[in-house]
């Protein structure tokens, strides 16, 4: 026996074991080794933009909310108490139409218009002297509640002003979810008639014409049986002196249908499909009529960003703002003028005072996982209808509606936004906010 060999035996055993353990160990635990390299690259849609050169300052018009607010529509009207402007808002959460009065000291005071009863999900509000008695009434469209349903929960109501006390009158009920009601004297008989977008439930919706007999009795005519009508802006789109309207439709189809008044009201209105897309997922969310290129006819601005198919929304590359340019003879050219995720509301105004119309847009479904994702932007018009997107704000988030006007009477248009916050993230809440344009502009 070799003593040296004997001495080295334990060492040899250990070494042999080690020699075996290393590969066996690696093989056994190879699946537990974690990758710690640079994280995989993530591609995402642009969610933030260059900061606006106009330094808008935010003013919250309501106290800071504890949870998400559900304002679905707002309008600006001259204040009764100052030279400034008041805000009228449809509040889906409380079932109330609210008027925020801009007091002469600059403060805002919240008042409720429909004190007599709550409304089922007021989604749109229009201040108008509907009965021609010299005071402002409010025309309200009601979607029935924030949860989608196929039940007949939609309504159109008139908040009739009786010397400052408002009475809620149902003009239309027993229909599915109503998303918009607009007015105009379509039959030229001196009273105001209505066009109504019944968005519908599952797939059953309508576009209605309610002809006023002058005494607030309405005959309703179904102009089109179609689901998904969102907005029905009114205007003289063919410059022939009578009022037409157009319907933005989004559900199975994504299209804009114009209804041409042939001089005898809307019962026999001629239909023109002025925009359509095979992209059923386009996500049109709102439409306003405006002469964006100031060539003397009415164009349309369309907000694109609806995305509610899944429990969590996703901004899409085609989201943003479209301009339908009126070329005359019911021909409209479509232009994408901004790409911003989840846009829900648009409004035109000349923010930089250069004489052309710019556009404000708000986003409800931008990529809120990004801290600086834009919730308010304005699109600067270079005068040739080429637009540059400027970011105004990244909070509050989840905004559904916007209106522009000179709320503080300093000569420049401001942006007022409404929050419809019902999904994650539950932070950066807003209510109704003004983004004030400094008097000197850009």
């Amino acid at each position, binding site marked *: 026996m070799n003593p040296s060999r004997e001495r080295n035996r334990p060492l040899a055993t250990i070494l042999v074991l080690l020699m075996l353990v290393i590969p066996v160990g690696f093989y056994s635990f190879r699946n537990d080794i974690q990758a710690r*390299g*640079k994280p995989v690259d993530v*591609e995402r849609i642009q969610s933030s933009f260059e900061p606006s050169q106009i330094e808008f300052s935010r003013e919250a018009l309501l106290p800071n909310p504890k949870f998400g607010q559900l304002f679905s529509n707002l309008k600006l009207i001259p204040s009764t108490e100052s030279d400034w402007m008041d805000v009228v808002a449809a509040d889906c959460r409380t079932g109330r139409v609210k008027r925020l009065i801009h007091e002469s000291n600059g403060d805002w005071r919240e008042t409720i218009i429909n004190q007599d009863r*709550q409304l089922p999900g007021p989604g749109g509000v229009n201040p108008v002297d509907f009965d021609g008695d010299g005071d402002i009434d409010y025309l309200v469209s009601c979607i029935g509640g*924030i949860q989608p349903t196929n039940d007949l929960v939609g309504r159109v109501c008139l908040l009739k002003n009786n010397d400052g006390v408002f009475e809620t009158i149902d003009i239309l009920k027993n229909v599915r979810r109503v998303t918009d009601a607009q007015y105009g004297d379509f039959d030229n008989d001196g009273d105001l008639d209505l066009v109504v977008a019944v968005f519908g439930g599952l*797939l059953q919706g309508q576009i209605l014409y309610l002809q006023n007999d002058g005494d607030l009795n309405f005959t309703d005519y179904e102009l089109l049986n179609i689901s998904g009508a969102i907005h029905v802006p009114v205007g003289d789109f063919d410059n022939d002196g009578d009022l037409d309207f157009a319907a933005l439709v989004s559900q199975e189809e994504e299209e804009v249908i114009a209804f041409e008044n042939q001089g005898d009201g809307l019962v026999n209105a001629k239909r023109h499909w002025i925009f359509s*897309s095979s992209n059923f997922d386009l996500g049109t969310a709102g439409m306003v009529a405006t002469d964006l290129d100031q060539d003397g006819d009415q164009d349309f601005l369309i907000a694109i960003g609806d995305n509610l198919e899944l429990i969590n929304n*996703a901004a899409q590359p085609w989201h943003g703002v479209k301009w339908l340019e009126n070329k005359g003879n019911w021909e409209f050219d479509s232009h994408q003028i901004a790409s911003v995720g989840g846009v829900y509301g648009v409004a035109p105004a000349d923010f930089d005072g250069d004489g052309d119309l710019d556009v404000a847009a708000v986003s409800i479904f931008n990529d809120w996982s990004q801290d600086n994702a834009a919730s308010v932007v304005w699109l600067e018009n270079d005068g040739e209808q080429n637009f540059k997107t400027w970011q105004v704000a990244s909070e509050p988030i989840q905004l559904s509606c916007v209106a522009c006007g000179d709320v503080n009477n300093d000569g420049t248009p401001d942006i007022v936004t409404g929050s419809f916050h019902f999904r*994650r993230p539950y*932070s950066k809440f807003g209510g109704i906010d003004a983004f004030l344009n400094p008097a000197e502009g850009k």
Partner: protein
Amino acid sequence: MRREVSFTLVVIAIEVVVFGYLYFQKTSQPAPPRPNLAIVDSFTEDDLAFFRDTTKVPADWHWLGQAYMAAGYYAEAQATFGRAAELMPDSAFVAFDNGFCLSRVGNLEEANSEFQRAIELEHPKSADAMYFIGRNHLRNEDPKNAEEAFRKAVKIPLSKFELAKILYRRGDLDEAESLLTEVVRAEKGTVQTFVLRSQIELKRGNVAGAEKQSIEADSKWVRIRSPFGEQRQRMMENNSKFGYYAKAKEAMAKVAQHENRVAREKVKEVLGEEFDLNVQDSFIKLDVFVGRVKEAVELIEERIERFGPNSSILLTLGDVQMLRGEEEIALQAWMEGIDINSDKSARDCCKRVANYYGNTVLDKEKSLVYQAIGAELYAQEGILLEEFGLANQQATLAVKFNPSSAEAFYLLGRSELGMGKTSAASNSFNRCLELEPTHGRSLLCLKSLGEIPKKAK
């Protein structure tokens, strides 16, 4: 011996170098993306962080992608699926999920490549993948390629339907209609088929035919089975496997099992983290069940403050207030429920109010008023559900209780129409128009019967 030791040492050294290199190579592989977890609740944050930090093998990457996608982190999910696809190039399931996620973020061309790969790898739902390819072509404003894809996936009824829609838009009405007939054969009574039939008839200039189809569509509730719906369901199931929704599911299960004490704690924990309507509903039910009616009222009031009133929550509020013996408040809640909506819950509010007046305070006249409204709402529901016999019974009662209600006569007409009694229906619509000459829906129904409404005459 020394030679053997030296040899072993050399082998060990080589092993250390080789396996060290392999270890280094493994650890230096790309790590999973890190989404901004600050925007979700802490349960979801913890679980997603755990999944991310324990992602090691390819299957972990696949699951992490699904979890990210279910939680709404689509961009991160897509990057994760992309990595999973690199690690498992032969997996049809990874390719399919990657395709779906790419579609979700609007990257349509890559999405279609991944769906195509899933088909080549023989995914069991290859037809669904082809349907999604068609769908993405539509989203890309490319109906020509969409048509080609839908033709390949024609064994899926919805694919056939999409094809019919493309043909309808192109003006090939006969082929569109024949495809629709095949869809109806596969899935009867679906709402889309009636809507498209109505559109086809309208394009043909057959207004009465179009209106007939529209009226049929009005009471249809079922949609054609959709591969997208299946994926949505899968995502929701994944979502309830972790984080907030797993906790919520657990809490609601305890409520259902009547493990009241544990259930209450769990529901409170979940609601304390984030407000969820379904969880809160369970909480209200639980509190009512265990007799904590005061707490239930507080929860209902919180619900109304956050989401506004509707007839459903007002019905519950009335019920709970009645349990507390607050009759006046209960009555007020039910009446508000009737005022605010015209749905099933409003109908139940009517029933409660009618019963209250009829049985408790013995005011038969008032009871009748609410029975009449309730009967109208019952009839309306019967029509929506196509239970025309029931609708007819209720509409008959509504007419009896309130013979001056135009709506009651309209509902009677609709139920008769549903039962095929066209002559009786015509009479009822005309009675409705006598009471309310501007009743648009009656006018429409008369038109669908091919009649000129009396008013128009």
